[in-house]
């Protein structure tokens, strides 16, 4: 069976989650590989969630928030934009290609943009192949890894 990447998407409730919803309502076809977790704001995405996702076997993580200036909570996405570059450097230390982590802005009306990002990212991760991490035996490994 061909490699199907598993991507965890953290979507903010107000823009990106609504945008993803719009993509569905508009019947826009997109790769089914992004598994969505809703947070109220992209600023809620604790860096440890992203590390945890990689640890548990995610091949990629995408954080989506409102465009800068559009945040429902005024400035939550500015917090995110400061955290993600640090995290990219950190995961490289762990041997994870920084391309596996993305930060994207998707507004509530950009269903097509959501689909485009999902497709692009799926293709990119597909090319990068499955994430292989040296995992300590004590840490639980996911049941099935493609």
């Amino acid at each position, binding site marked *: 069976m061909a490699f199907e990447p598993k991507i965890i998407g953290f979507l903010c409730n*107000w823009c990106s989650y609504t945008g993803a919803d719009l993509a569905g309502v508009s019947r826009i076809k997109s790769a089914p590989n992004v598994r969505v977790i809703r947070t*109220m704001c992209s600023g809620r995405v604790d860096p440890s*969630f992203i590390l945890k996702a990689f640890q548990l076997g995610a091949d990629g993580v995408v954080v989506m928030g409102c465009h800068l200036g559009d945040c*429902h*909570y005024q400035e939550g996405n500015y917090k995110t934009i400061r955290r993600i570059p640090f995290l990219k450097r950190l995961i490289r230390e762990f041997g994870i290609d920084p391309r596996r982590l993305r930060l994207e802005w998707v507004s*509530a009306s950009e269903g097509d943009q959501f689909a485009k990002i999902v497709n692009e990212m799926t293709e990119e991760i597909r090319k990068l192949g499955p994430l292989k991490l040296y995992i300590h035996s004590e840490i639980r490994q996911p049941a099935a890894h493609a």
Partner: protein
Amino acid sequence: MVTINIDATRIEIDEDTTILKAAEKAGIWIPTMCYSEYFEPYGVCRLCSVEVVRGKRSRIVTACNYPVREGITVLTNSEKVKWIRKIIMELTFSRWPNVKVVREMAEKLGIEKPRFVSLERDEAEDACILCGMCVNMCNEVVKAGVLGFANVGIKREVVLPFNERSDRCIVCGACVYVCPTGHIKTVIEDYKGKKPEFTLGPKTAIYVPTLQAVPRIPVIDTNSCIHFKTGGCEICAKVCEPNAINYEMQDEIVEIDVGQILISTGFDLFDASPMAQYGYGRLDNVYSSLEFEMMLNSTGPTSGKVLTKDGKEPRSVAIIHCIGSRDVNHHPYCSRVCCMYALKYAHLVHDRTSAAIYQFYIDMRAFGKGYEEFYVRILDEGVKVIRGKVAEVVEAMSSQKDEGLLSVRCEDTLAGKLLDIPVDMVVLCNAIEPRRDSDAVRRLFSISKSPDGFFLERHPKLDPTSTMTDGVYIAGCAQGPKDIPDTVAQASSAAARMLSFIAKGEVEIEPVRAMVQEEYCSGCKICNGLCPYSAIEFLEDKKISHVNEALCKGCGTCVAACPSSAMTGHGFTDKQILAEIEGLMV
């Protein structure tokens, strides 16, 4: 109060009122030629001369500047007065025999022909009669001080300083306005050197924006108001009986506490001038839809008459749909209202003129109640509808000028023919577009926009009036192009939604809130600065942070930042999200 007699009438009037005003009150006419309410009486024409009898003495005075005193008797029509007036008028008449106001006044005073021959006889119909009204207006009212008299006697004349164009002149037109003979004229220099027949806009500096304006209160355009240039004039304040005009008023920022807000900021009209093929702003007689609407308005610049720029009735009118809408280069969406107002224009032009009317459309969208019926009625009226987007509007070639001033080139896509139709007037149906500052408004209320730029509703079907921000509602063209019935429906719905909260007296808020687990909080204060709502306060006595639940909106930024995991977000705890990640990896 003093009591005076004017001719046979006895009246009571305030002391120091002029005789002229007293006579006006008594209903007695006194001729004047240099008097105006706007400035102090000048008393130069001497035509208002009357006889004042005080005891046994009688004297001739000018009524316009002579204050009344107790017990005087004024004779406005005595033999002496008549004789003086006649001589004054004959002298004036002999010098300016063809000026209309002079002729009329002479006629009123019963003079057919002057007995004198003037050395300075001026045959012009618009000669300057040296009444001085323009000079007084310029100096006393406008306070520009540009006009003045030069020389004396028969050489007297109204001049500009050094007979040169003056920098002090603010081109207010007050002298033109008061000039009784039309000697002073306004020369408007148009961009092409042509004289515009009318301008689409207010004609005075103080004006009511439209007769339908709510509230119907006049505004002052400070850029053209004389008072704001020279500090003079103030005529509007003088004539306003309730003293409602206040020049000191400034824009002010008022803070009002409210619980809910309805945003109905409307739309901007698409500017067609970048679409050079239609010639808007370049060719005469090409109008945008709102300009044409103004022309059709009975209180508009043409009093509702459909006129070309040279003031003639057009022989044919082209109405072009979808300017900027349904256009990949501009707005992909349909502006919805244009088809129907274009049909309305056709009907009104048909009603008011005998012009041939052409409609150029892409698709005729008569979508509402009674709309299709109206379309059929317009077809019955003989309006020619042509399916095809107009390629260009050009100035007609000289051989075509007798048929139309402009030429509309288009393909009739139903007949498969290329057309070149001469018309006198072109009306563009401009697209409705979001207001140019809508992004700033949107960010103020943290609401989203749809791809077309209009404000985004919470749900297109189930919640079309509220937004992602609690307590903020949208209605009308701010949400998307719509006609009046749809706007009324949406606005009423929004109002009802808002009233329902007011009636309830309390609001339900989402239970998603952050909370500090006090035993873990180290009091590092990292979260305090992160909160956009200042909901986190530091308790000095306990040395820990505390979340004010009424202010917290539950974004979770503080939860993600807390280094000791003391902050938790209800509904989105670390445990819940980690479990979600785990669940998704299966």
